[in-house]
């Protein structure tokens, strides 16, 4: 044939390919503008541009101040472009966690901390964000608009939540930056730019862990910015080598890459040969060595078990595992780890599996197996944010842990409603936390009916309950020993429910009625509350706009043991009645009068002068 045809073919193919490519880029032109590409002018190849992204979505978090389905003070505000920054102040468009300071550790509902928590694990809350594109991160900036300084750890995950196919390898978390909580003196907005470590995998899933204990008020975050490179920068190989030798921090989590295998290797039994005698260790009484080992954290205990037969025996003694806190190791704990721990944990009484097991790390079968072996002595079980839980797990808990006294299912919002039916079988329950779960009315009534030993109950943000007055009257009838009750954001409780509560539970020391708009002071419910609950130490009436001087005076008269009071947002309380309260309640240490229009800054200054032991909080928007 003539040479025209091959040339025509080549030209046609070329033309076709060019058009297909143009068409593909044209279809992607509809990108949202939360995302832009900067051409870096370094000597790297022009294709390796730096990508700057705002968060696309908030996928998980442990708590927030706002209401479910709202956009005020909720964690979902952390996604997208900033709304408030660089302004400072208390704005609705920011992401706010539920707690701050040490106030929640000082109130009657505070639970005892687990011993043997590694000193560098101080995280109290977390939030996980996804970004559109996977990049090798070069920087993570957090825009904080109020009381900055809470972020203490930033992690990146290798899993891509948006990939249609399941991941090729097990996903892993790597710490990009971590530091102890430090006090930041200003309450002004700042762009927090910590120096992050380079990692050798691309990521679009970032996790922030916070600790608010040093803060004067709620921290508020506006946005998170992820800077990264699309292609692997050449430096990364070098830094990962350095990391292997980096023993500065006595935390094996830093040396990762094979972190999970590391942990599992430590946990698995190793064969030890016969060696020489153990010297003085043979002379020390068994209990004394046990007492010494009690001070070691779990990884150290596992490392020590590999040294000699005697210490191996000590480290495997179930008495070392009576209180087991696995929350600090959430990033690595999986079914295999539980299996290795099983043999030594038969006597465990306190078990903390909060934050663990997500993204397929722990399966229902693995958890069930562990619990069947180790659950019979369990007294306290912490399962906050454990999203692997399902109804079967709750059933197994109710069957294998008959003596359970404390159960924490905080923020397990994926648990189906019928799972909560099984909790009623745990008749010895003294503490139950159902914050932000989907528990329904019938299940809760059943729990209240059978768990008459309840002393601490948290129903904060339980949105599926239809009628809180019915719940309150059940509590008043059945839970006579109740000492603390959290009804934060319980939308429809009225004075009838409060009346039944106050008359039925005279031992109440703590009552959180924050953001319950259906309570009206004019019905006298707060006055009645004050008169019938003389043991009240903590009372939150946040954003109840009807709280008035009479209520404050009743509290001053009757609740002299009051330590914490929040009356944010009422226009009807004057400095006069507050003065009476401050004079009468000598133990008062927290008084939140934010957005109380009659209490201005001058009044607060005066009070600070006369009552120096009281922390008076007055938040502001601008």
């Amino acid at each position: 044939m003539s040479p025209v045809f091959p040339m025509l073919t080549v030209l046609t193919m070329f033309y076709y390919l060019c058009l297909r490519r143009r068409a593909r880029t044209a279809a992607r032109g509809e990108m949202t503008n939360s995302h832009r590409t900067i051409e870096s002018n370094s000597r790297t190849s022009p294709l390796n541009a730096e990508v700057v992204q705002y968060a696309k979505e908030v996928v998980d978090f442990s708590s927030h101040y706002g209401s479910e389905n709202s956009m005020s003070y909720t964690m979902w505000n952390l996604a997208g472009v900033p709304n408030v920054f660089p302004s400072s102040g208390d704005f609705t468009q920011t992401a706010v966690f539920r707690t701050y300071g040490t106030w929640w550790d000082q109130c009657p509902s505070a639970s005892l901390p687990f011993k043997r928590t590694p000193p560098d694990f101080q995280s109290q809350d977390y939030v996980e964000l996804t970004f559109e594109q996977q990049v090798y991160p070069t920087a993570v900036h957090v825009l904080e608009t109020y009381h900055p300084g809470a972020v203490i750890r930033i992690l990146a995950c290798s899993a891509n939540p948006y990939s249609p196919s399941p991941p090729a390898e097990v996903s892993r978390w790597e710490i990009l930056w971590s530091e102890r909580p430090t006090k930041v003196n200003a309450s002004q907005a700042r762009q927090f730019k910590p120096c992050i470590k380079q990692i050798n995998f691309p990521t679009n899933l970032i996790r922030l862990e916070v600790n608010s204990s040093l803060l004067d008020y709620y921290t508020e975050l506006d946005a998170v910015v992820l800077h990264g490179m699309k292609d692997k920068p050449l430096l990364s190989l070098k830094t990962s080598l350095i990391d292997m030798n980096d023993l500065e921090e006595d935390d094996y989590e830093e040396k990762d890459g094979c972190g999970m295998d590391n942990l599992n290797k430590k946990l698995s039994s190793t064969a030890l040969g016969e060696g020489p005698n153990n010297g003085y260790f043979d002379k020390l009484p068994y209990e004394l060595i046990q007492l010494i080992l009690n001070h070691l954290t779990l990884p150290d205990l596992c490392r020590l078990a590999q040294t000699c037969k005697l210490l191996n025996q000590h480290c495997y003694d179930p008495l070392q595992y009576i209180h087991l806190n696995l929350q600090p190791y959430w990033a690595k704990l999986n079914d295999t780890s539980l299996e290795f721990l099983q043999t030594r944990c038969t006597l465990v009484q306190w078990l903390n599996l909060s934050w663990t097991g997500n993204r397929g790390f722990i399966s229902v079968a693995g958890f069930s197996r562990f619990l069947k072996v180790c659950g019979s002595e369990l007294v306290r079980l912490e399962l906050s944010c454990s999203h692997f839980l399902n109804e079967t797990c709750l059933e197994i808990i109710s069957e294998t842990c008959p003596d359970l006294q404390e159960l924490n299912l905080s923020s397990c919002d994926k648990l189906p409603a019928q799972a909560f039916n099984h909790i009623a079988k745990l008749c010895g329950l003294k503490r139950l936390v159902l914050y932000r779960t989907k528990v329904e009315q019938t299940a809760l009534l059943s729990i209240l009916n059978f768990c008459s030993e309840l002393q601490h109950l948290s129903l904060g943000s339980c949105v599926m309950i239809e009628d809180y007055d019915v719940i309150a009257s059940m509590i008043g009838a059945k839970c006579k020993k109740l000492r603390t009750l959290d009804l934060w954001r319980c939308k429809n409780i009225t004075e009838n429910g409060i009346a039944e509560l106050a008359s039925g539970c005279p031992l109440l020391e703590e009552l959180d009625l924050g953001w319950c708009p259906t309570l009206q002071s004019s019905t006298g419910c707060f006055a009645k509350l004050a008169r019938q609950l003389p043991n009240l130490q903590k009372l939150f009436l946040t954003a109840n706009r009807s709280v008035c001087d009479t209520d404050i005076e009743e509290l001053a008269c009757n609740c002299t043991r009051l330590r914490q009071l929040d009356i944010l947002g009422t226009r009807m309380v004057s400095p006069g009645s507050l003065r009476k309260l401050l004079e009468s309640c000598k133990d008062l240490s927290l008084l939140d009068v934010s957005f109380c229009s009659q209490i201005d800054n001058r009044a607060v200054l005066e009070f600070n002068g006369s009552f120096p032991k009281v922390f008076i909080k007055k938040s502001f928007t601008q």
Partner: protein
Amino acid sequence: MFSVLSYGRLVARAVLGGLSQTDPRAGGGGGGGDYGLVTAGCGFGKDFRKGLLKKGACYGDDACFVARHRSADVLGVADGVGGWRDYGVDPSQFSGTLMRTCERLVKEGRFVPSNPIGILTTSYCELLQNKVPLLGSSTACIVVLDRTSHRLHTANLGDSGFLVVRGGEVVHRSDEQQHYFNTPFQLSIAPPEAEGVVLSDSPDAADSTSFDVQLGDIILTATDGLFDNMPDYMILQELKKLKNSNYESIQQTARSIAEQAHELAYDPNYMSPFAQFACDNGLNVRGGKPDDITVLLSIVAEYTD
């Protein structure tokens, strides 16, 4: 010969494929593409403050917003009820916060284009979630253009409203909602001691309508400061001067409408629609009605990014 045909087919496919893929957004013909609103606004507060509208602003006690989302263009006006001033409450705070919250809702996509009452309801609930104790009341009118279905969805609570003008004639208009004279339906947040006494309508009481729009339709959304001072024929006269759909000419027309209404409001001899209505109800009055005026003028056009 066989190869000639296959080459020919290849060429044809490449050429035709290229033609149809070069510009996917041109739309497959006249009404096939997405629609958008080109909006400009102007307003005057009662105390002679002039204002040029950018995106969201307050004119006296009135407030408005204009927001874009991938699926819809949304705008709204709210008329703060001035009576709160006598009780020490700034009426513009409620209307302004309501409009800003609606704007934020739209930008974050927390709405359904065919349910503008939902925007009002959600926005009103969000106002109650604010730590700051908001007080006040306002009317509200929300207009949503669904880009792909070419339908306009509206919700109106109170005496603000909108007009849709096509070919020099009014083809759709909102109805005023009044409890009694000069007391429109209103969303409100009252102090707890006055809960039963203060007029407070639910967002569900809003009137909702949906209809198709065409390219070139003019939508005028305004508070009662405009409609009480300018009758339809005057508004239509001004709108006739609108020649094209670019931002500057819309801006100019909006301004001239607002200015004219503002002048008429202070004319003591002019028989304004407000005065006419009062006369019909037995009150012998004449002249314009001094009030905050907010005008948002939009044209339905092809959507460009």
